[in-house]
């Protein structure tokens, strides 16, 4: 495998469970050192894809290569070079914090002195040194998540795979976690993550694919995706009505495009303030009018007609 070959390469990758096709012949490639994201709503096929890449779920069809190796025949060799942070923490609650890292390192064939040295380092990194001898159960959600990440780094993985890394965490815990992931990225660890939070994708990913119903509907950097699939600004209007759909016709033409959500109208335009003036000129009186920049949420809405988090 030469250095310019992608670290992970999938073509026509498919996963079927009985009649249900969870992943429909997707293609993607992850380069060494980048942070690559799968963005999509629940049920888009992100986790199924991650499980195939993590060599814990055989592909039904297509081709998948990690480090140039085939998961179907080289599973243990590939997994030895991966770090996996699953959606739900699967920490060993019968063990203490430090024992969790020791044992996990042993699963990777590291010697006892190696795992002890590694655990000291990783607990420092995860800001858990003071809890080393604690049981896992009383830790907060953010601490457990950091321990799961610390554990996944014990084998010094080339690729760290994170499935919904911050789901269920409070804002402060999320930022601590993001900071840790940035540090890893700076050290050259390739990150592959799934998320249904657009801010997370924008914060962490160099490049991402948007998934919906098992398919990849768009691919690019967060900035490119916004430029290609949305306008520069968005005007959000809330009216004192039960159904915003009835007002959609009256704002039609004030921007490039209008999206109707149950609780608000979104007018896509390169100049939000100008559109706002036109709304007033048309005799409409919204309860609130907010101009903001387009986000990945808008990209997703444009591509699929649905919101990411419902």
């Amino acid at each position, binding site marked *: 495998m030469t250095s310019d070959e992608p670290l992970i390469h999938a073509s026509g990758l498919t996963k079927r*469970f009985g009649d249900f096709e969870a992943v429909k012949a997707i293609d993607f490639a992850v380069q060494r050192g980048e942070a690559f994201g799968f963005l999509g709503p629940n049920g888009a096929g992100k986790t199924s894809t991650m499980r195939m890449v*993590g060599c*814990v*779920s*055989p592909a039904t069809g297509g081709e998948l290569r990690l480090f140039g190796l085939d998961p179907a025949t080289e*599973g*243990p*060799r590939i*997994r*030895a070079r*991966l770090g*996996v942070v*699953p959606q*739900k923490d*699967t*920490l*060993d*609650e*019968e*063990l203490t914090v430090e*024992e969790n890292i*020791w*044992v*996990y390192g*042993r*699963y*990777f*064939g*590291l*010697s006892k002195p*190696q795992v002890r*040295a*590694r655990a000291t*380092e*990783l607990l*420092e*990194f995860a800001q858990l040194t003071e809890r080393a001898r604690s049981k896992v159960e009383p830790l907060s959600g953010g601490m457990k998540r950091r321990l799961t990440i610390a554990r996944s*780094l014990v*084998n*010094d993985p080339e690729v760290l795979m994170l499935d919904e890394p911050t789901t269920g965490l409070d804002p402060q815990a999320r930022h601590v976690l993001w900071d840790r992931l940035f*540090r*890893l990225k700076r*050290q050259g660890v390739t990150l592959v993550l799934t998320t249904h939070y657009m801010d997370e994708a924008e914060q962490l990913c160099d490049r991402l694919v948007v998934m919906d119903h098992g398919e990849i509907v768009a691919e690019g950097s967060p900035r490119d995706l916004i430029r290609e699939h949305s306008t520069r600004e968005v005007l959000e209007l809330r009216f004192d009505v039960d159904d915003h759909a009835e007002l959609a016709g009256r704002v039609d033409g004030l921007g490039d495009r209008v999206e109707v959500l149950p609780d608000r109208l979104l007018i896509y335009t390169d100049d939000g303030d100008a559109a706002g003036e036109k709304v007033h000129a048309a005799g409409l009186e919204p309860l609130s009018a907010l101009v903001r920049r387009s986000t990945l949420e808008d990209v997703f809405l444009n591509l699929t007609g649905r919101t990411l988090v419902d």
Partner: protein
Amino acid sequence: MTIRTAAPAAPRPGVVSRLARVLPIPAGAGMARILVERNAMAFRHGWIAFVTGLAEPILYLFSLGVGLGALVRTVTTDGGSVVSYAEFVAPALLAAAAMNGAVFDSTFNVFFKLKYAKLYDSVLATPLGPRDVAVGEISWSLLRGAFYSGAFLLVAVVAGMVHSWWALLALPAANFISFAFSAVGMFATTFMRSWVDFDWINLAIQPLFLFSATFFPLATYPSGVQWLVQVTPLYHGVALERGLMLGEVGTGLLVHVAYLAVLGLVGLVGAARRVERLLLS
């Protein structure tokens, strides 16, 4: 976070995993022993369960051997020798203890790890495979079983219930019984949906404990029932232990060994396959 650890040394496979490698069962990395290490570590936090597993068969031994033995005096074994009741029942209790310990570990404990702790999900994300999980868990319950059997045998020897040097083989034999039941127990556990299903395990274990020629010789049963008893697994464990501890040794014992070996291997392969199906879908 800047220290780079050396590349992991190639693990040396243990005897059990080497044996497992030649069988047509799912992939593993030959690292089952690390799961044993994990269990030993977890066990240090919950060692009290160890004591109860040890106490039960010894209490039975004294209650039945000494108490009931005062009423029954002697028994004529299926091998034809006349022995005290305590000598007669001790080997059977050893076999039953081996079964109980193995079944407890491979059913309740494995089910908890499989369904609630999600232990194997995280283990399978490492180089370890489903075969390592099956071999590791079964090996662990063998180790525990060996400790129980050893302690039980020691008590029986000290209490003067053992007279034959063949009894030295009773320990590996007990391990063999543990292996068979542990493997089948783990296989069965992979089919369990909730704790309610564990009643089926009790339903299977209790009659085995009572009617495997444990407390009275096979000859006591009506001939039709004798046939039935000889089909069930604990009977073979009891007959094996009794043959060794009473010194009634013959080639017939090999039949029991073969029965338990087949049962254990079927359970082992089945358990590994089911773990693969459940977790690597």
